[in-house]
């Protein structure tokens, strides 16, 4: 499995749609962690610092969980 993954990565054919979903999962996990740590809601900026991902990319990744059927693959359906 690991080898297949590496092969796919090296070929540069990882789809954004899949990667975005992974990012979105990381965002959710980081958010829960920070909320526990601070005992309050946390902002996008705080999550962005924690993960070293820009706020814009966080916004994009969250959309990939909401409505993948719209944002991705529209023309391949």
């Amino acid at each position, binding site marked *: 499995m690991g080898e297949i993954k590496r092969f796919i990565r090296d070929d540069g054919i990882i789809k954004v749609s899949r990667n975005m979903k992974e990012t979105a999962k990381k*965002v959710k996990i980081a*958010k829960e962690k920070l909320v526990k740590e601070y005992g*309050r*809601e*946390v*902002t*996008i*900026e705080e*999550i962005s610092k924690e993960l070293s991902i820009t*706020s*814009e990319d*966080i*916004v*994009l990744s*969250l*959309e990939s969980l*909401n*409505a993948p059927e*719209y*944002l991705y693959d*529209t023309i391949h359906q």
Partner: protein
Amino acid sequence: MYHNEMKIEFPSKSQNEAFARVVVAAFASQLDPTIEELSDVKTAVSEAVTNAIIHGYENSSGTVTIKCSIDGNKLTVEVIDFGKGIEDVELARQPLYTSRPELERSGMGFTVMETFMDTLEVESQIGKGTRVIMTKSFKSV
């Protein structure tokens, strides 16, 4: 006071609803919102854009315009169509009112916008189109 603005135009295709939502969310992210605040804005934008597409243009082709501005910690979002317009805005804003029950819409679009944003204004003229103006202030946590 910090000010920024943007305007976007796109054709009234259903797949542009998600696009519109991301654009407004990306713009609003300058206000350093929480994920929940951002999700509220996205939900409201979805409802307004869906209305423009399915009611304003009745799924025929037209242009949807969104204007956003930020003043201090306040976001203003205008969703504009040049479609058929609304005859009775007060009636249309009633919870559960829908002019197209056959579409299995919930009639809750305007109610959702009101709930998730701080203010909602609707301006409409028959044959001219509809402008929905929503605002929301973001509390820094």
